[in-house]
């Protein structure tokens, strides 16, 4: 009896991933045909082993966020007519344009969004492209599903054209357009806009704290951060709590559920709360406002489970 094809899927996936580079067709599937544009260079693929050849020491941060592969290419067009078929109707703009496209694929959408937050300046204006995007004069970045996309316009700057290109590219890419659910847990009051940062590992400089997101707050002159850590399960969170409490003076109750303050040699007094697979807390500048928001955060974390 032949095993059904579906059962061979795992093997097939292993074989495909294990290949030295992706098949050309896979790369191109992330690089759609966009009207008026052609791919003038690439696609070129990079793996976790070769990413440093492309972005040097910057590769380490991507690897921390479970980077899987990168597809890089350059799109060009030379048929732009001034004032007509280009956004913004800029009569002085050149007729040629070139955009480099880097598509970083991560293990999942949370990791891709996490890497995006690492490279996003706090308070930057967000663009409704994919889950979220932001742009400068000659570059635009966005995240969609488990893909983190970085565009750079070579030569003369033309932000409207770059944005139009990004929207077309994003529309063709697979994956969720929803931000990670954990962000909903953070209260809005005092929250610094678009300043949340994810940490896949080594959160707060501690090797045992993983899968965290921290959000800075400014309330009545006090600056502090609230954070949420999503453990694999309650045992995972218990282990994190136990190890954290072991490194500094700590008060509080049992490791399975409760609250404590850890005197962290790196980060000062850290307020911790935990229940089930969630660990949340606050760091920097204790104050009544921080306490109030921490309580609210706890209620919202509980709602994530429902």
């Amino acid at each position: 009896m032949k095993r059904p094809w579906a059962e061979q899927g795992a093997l097939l996936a292993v074989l495909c991933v294990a290949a030295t580079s992706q098949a050309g067709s896979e790369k191109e599937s992330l690089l759609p045909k966009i009207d008026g544009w052609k791919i003038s260079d690439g696609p070129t693929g990079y793996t976790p082993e070769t990413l440093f050849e492309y972005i040097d020491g910057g590769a380490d941060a991507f690897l921390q966020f479970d980077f899987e592969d990168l597809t890089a290419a350059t799109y060009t067009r030379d048929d732009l007519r001034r004032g007509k078929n280009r956004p913004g109707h800029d009569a002085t703009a050149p007729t040629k344009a070139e955009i480099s496209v880097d598509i970083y694929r991560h293990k999942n959408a949370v990791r891709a969004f996490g890497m995006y937050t690492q490279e996003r300046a706090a308070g930057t204006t967000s663009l409704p492209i994919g889950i979220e995007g932001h742009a400068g004069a000659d570059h635009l970045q966005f995240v969609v599903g488990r893909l983190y996309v970085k565009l750079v316009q070579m030569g003369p700057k033309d932000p409207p054209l770059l944005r139009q290109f990004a929207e077309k590219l994003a529309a063709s890419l697979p994956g969720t357009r929803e931000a990670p659910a954990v962000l909903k847990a953070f209260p809005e009051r005092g929250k610094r806009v678009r300043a949340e940062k994810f940490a896949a590992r080594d959160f707060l400089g501690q090797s045992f704290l993983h899968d965290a997101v921290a959000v800075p707050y400014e309330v009545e002159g006090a600056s502090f951060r609230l954070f949420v850590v999503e453990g694999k399960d309650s045992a995972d969170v218990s282990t994190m709590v136990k190890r954290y409490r072991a490194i500094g003076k700590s008060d509080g109750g049992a490791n399975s559920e409760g609250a404590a303050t850890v005197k962290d040699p790196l980060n000062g007094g850290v307020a911790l709360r935990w229940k089930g697979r969630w660990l949340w807390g606050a760091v920097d500048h204790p104050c009544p406002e921080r306490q109030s928001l921490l309580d609210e955060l706890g209620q919202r974390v509980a709602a994530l489970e429902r």
Partner: protein
Amino acid sequence: MNKVERRDFLRLGMGGIAAGALSAGCATMASSQERKTLSPAATPAPQPAPAAPAAMEPPRRILGRTGIKVPTVSMGVMNADNPNLVRAALDGGILLLDTAHGYQDGRNEEMLGTVLRDRKRDAFVLETKVFVSTLDRKTGLFSKDTRGEEIEEKLDISLKRLGLDHVDILYLHAQSAREGVHHESICKALEKAKRDGKARAIGVSTHKNEPEVIRAAVEAKLYDVVLTSYNFRQDHHLQVQQAIAEAAQAGLGIVAMKTQAGVFWDKEKTSPINMKAALKWALRDPNVHTAIPGFSTLEQLQTDLEVLRNPTLIEDEKRSLEAPKVVGFFCQGCDQCLEPCLQKLPIPELMRSFMYAHAYRNRQAAQSLLLELGLPEFPCDDCDTCAVRCAKGFDVRQRVRDIARLRAVPREFLI
């Protein structure tokens, strides 16, 4: 972190490194006498570094003609987004911080800025790198439209992020060919940055074709420092070592990076490299003035500070840097597996197919061979235990089960 917490950190985390010992005044220009005493050794072969003195002061070396005196262990900041970790590193005795214009799209430099604004300017050494966008990474050559001004523009942005009026070392980032290192407009821009006081010293960084780049930096008579990959796993580490010696002889400062050699021995990240030993290996070379291991946790910082205090590579550590014994892929065809196998499987041929698939990555050849063997549908499934003991140590049953599945994969998917 307030003062009390810093004391706690030192007590809890550092175990005796005195922060004050290395604070203000460390980054002073060394005297000419000191420079003479550090003149590179005639022989390039690494010498064991002298054991650290019992005193609290960790060893420092002079960064070539820059005269900047730095502890042998510095911090690669690219993995750290926690300013408190950088503060702890500085308090623990680290002086030189390495970042780049492009790390985390500038967020890394911004984070460092929040730390450095509270420090005296002579209490740290800051180096950053600027990548020129017209560099073809494949060839290492700059395109015709390369503008040296890009360096100045990016450096100005970096200085703003860092909150500094100058960096101590400015590197031309990621060079891999002589021509790139000698590019006229780039060289002029780097010289201008130094002349304008925006960089005390200029350098070049490389992690590909390092010997060529290092020698090009010497020839250019422009650069003060080279930042190079250097680790025990490089196949060409002897060539890198020789080029480093020549550069040090010519008066260049040498900063080593990627000393941790990938952190793990294996792709699956199950077998970690001895980080302490790997760092010590690089620092054995007296021509390496400092190394910039990246770290993002308190434990890693502690490990690096232990190396800073005692860089001597002991025998056990040396042995730990020998590659783990691997079973490998090659079947020697001794046929001792054939008799014990109850299924009478053609094991040597199956091992050969396994080698084609996983070592040569030629899955088509592996499948062709498999299809010739007339195997049962599910080989090995009928035996509770495997009686075969391979002379090479292969896990025969696991390999047979793994490779046999390749028969069912459509040919067009085999790449």
